């Protein structure tokens, strides 16, 4: 009886933890299978433990090349989308202007559109213009779909900013440039950083839009897609696992730093 009552009271917790398990199970599989030594071309069945792939992560032809292309595109797309998106966010929060509704929907629509539609329509543009598909068309596409997410992230931060801080800076004889660089920008920075991180993650992991507009350029997700047909090397799992570990360490470091800062303040 006591158990039944305990079970009833913690039903939500049990359900939530099961869902969490469902979310994390594939990551566990990816990590475990990075130590596999598969028999055939596909790494779907466990054979025996081996460190081969970890010793030679770039041992597969073209994989690390595709990784570097993905990183380059992600960096440039992040820079582009963050600059353009931050400018739009400031305009939306700080100014009145005509056609605000149209601007808002133009920013909302890319987020409410299935990726395949954006991918296909952008391809029709490039085809009709006779553009050469490759690095540049991918970059153009990535900046396009990352832009809205940056605007949303930065807008949220700028909106919650106390305008009196800037007035105070001006009262203390800071010029407009100085106020922007030393007051506005530092306060908006977390929002801009969040938008940039999001853009980087979205661009780096994008497959659908890239697949349509890449021509013969192969990014890392496209390499993985191709390998699902040709044979999945263990090195894919090594890269997946390494990315996961690096990102988690990043987040943990950020948490520790912000905790310390809060303690110092208190």
């Amino acid at each position, binding site marked *: 009886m006591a158990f039944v009552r305990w079970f009833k009271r913690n039903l*939500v*917790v049990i*359900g*939530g933890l099961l*869902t*969490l398990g*469902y*979310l994390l*199970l*594939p*990551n566990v*599989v*990816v990590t475990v*299978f990075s130590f596999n030594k598969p028999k055939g071309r596909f790494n779907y069945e466990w054979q025996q433990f081996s460190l081969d792939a970890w010793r030679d992560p770039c041992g597969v032809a073209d994989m690390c090349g595709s990784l570097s292309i993905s990183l380059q595109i992600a960096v440039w797309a992040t820079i582009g989308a963050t600059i*353009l998106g931050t*400018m*739009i966010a*400031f*305009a939306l929060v*700080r*100014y009145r*202007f005509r056609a605000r509704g149209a601007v808002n929907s*133009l920013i909302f629509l*890319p987020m*409410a559109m299935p*990726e*395949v*539609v*954006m991918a*296909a*329509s952008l391809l*029709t*543009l490039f*085809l*009709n213009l006779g553009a050469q598909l490759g690095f540049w068309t991918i970059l*153009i596409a990535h*900046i396009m779909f990352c*832009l809205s997410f940056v605007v949303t992230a930065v807008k949220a931060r700028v909106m919650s900013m106390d*305008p009196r801080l*800037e007035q105070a800076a*001006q009262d203390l004889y800071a010029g*407009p*440039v100085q106020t*922007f*660089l030393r007051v506005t920008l530092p306060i908006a920075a977390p929002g801009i950083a969040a938008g940039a991180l999001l853009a980087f993650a979205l661009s780096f992991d994008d*497959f*659908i839009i890239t*697949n*349509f507009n890449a021509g013969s350029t192969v990014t*890392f*997700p496209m390499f*993985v*897609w191709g390998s*699902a047909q040709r044979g999945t090397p263990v090195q*894919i*799992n090594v890269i*997946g696992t390494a990315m*996961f570990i690096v990102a*988690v360490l990043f987040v943990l470091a950020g*948490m520790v730093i912000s905790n310390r800062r809060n303690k110092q303040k208190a």
Partner: protein
Amino acid sequence: MASVTEAPLLAPQSDKKPPRKRGRLVPYWLLLPGILWLLVFFALPMVYQVSTSVQTGSLEEGFKVTWHFQTYWNALADYWPQFLRSVLYAGAATILCLVLGYPLAYLIAFRAGRWRNVVLILVIAPFFTSFLIRTLAWKTILADGGPVVGALNTLHVLDVTNWLGFTSGDRVLATPLAVVCGLTYNFLPFMILPLYTSLERIDGRLHEAAGDLYAKPFTTFRKVTFPLSMPGVVSGTLLTFIPASGDYVNADLLGSTDTRMVGNVIQTQFLRILDYPTAAALSFILMAAILIMVTLYIRKSGTEDLV
């Protein structure tokens, strides 16, 4: 650019009046590059998509606009099963995401205590590994004769799903069940995060008040918590359903030729068969269908402050 953006940023609040003409133009300068980008590479392609869909011709001779609307009827006649499947699979995945995601969002908002941030990070963490790699991992998890399929067999779950037509025989892989399972997995965080955001805003004293008025826990949930979390439910279902309905990765990697969704058709028509008009018509129909559904849904649920 910098000098233009910085100078009058504070204009509306400061006492000193900046040169008016310049100040009035600032928002437009700020908007110009980004909006131009979206117009040229998001809005204009929609126009080209429509124009491509009414073209006829061949790859060798080139395509010309002939206002051949027949393409739309042919596309619908040929591919309505894939459209139907997209709606069904995406709908099933959305419902599963809501059912699976709600307890976890609730757990993070009300029961996690000091573990809250850790659980939140664990929800986002899968994103750090490429989603294609993670989707491929489901091939291992659901492998024929593997532990998951074995367990489902022992529990006679497969008998039920076989009877419903979600699986066939002793297999899960290459069946609709595998595709829906993959879709659910891929878009679950998009459900959990908005749910969590709206649950977290709920004042805990409302729960106490409901309890004081002799509401049982489930009644409290049904009458207080769930209605207050509606904004999260609406944006979560949208964020799940829209990408899921256009997805072709899960249907391709985890499904078979019998589980092809409309995304798969658009992809093969565009990239392999090179029948651009049909592909563009299909993509336009999908877009229109989604826009109509989303508009109706937002109207119906009365949450207009999503944008």
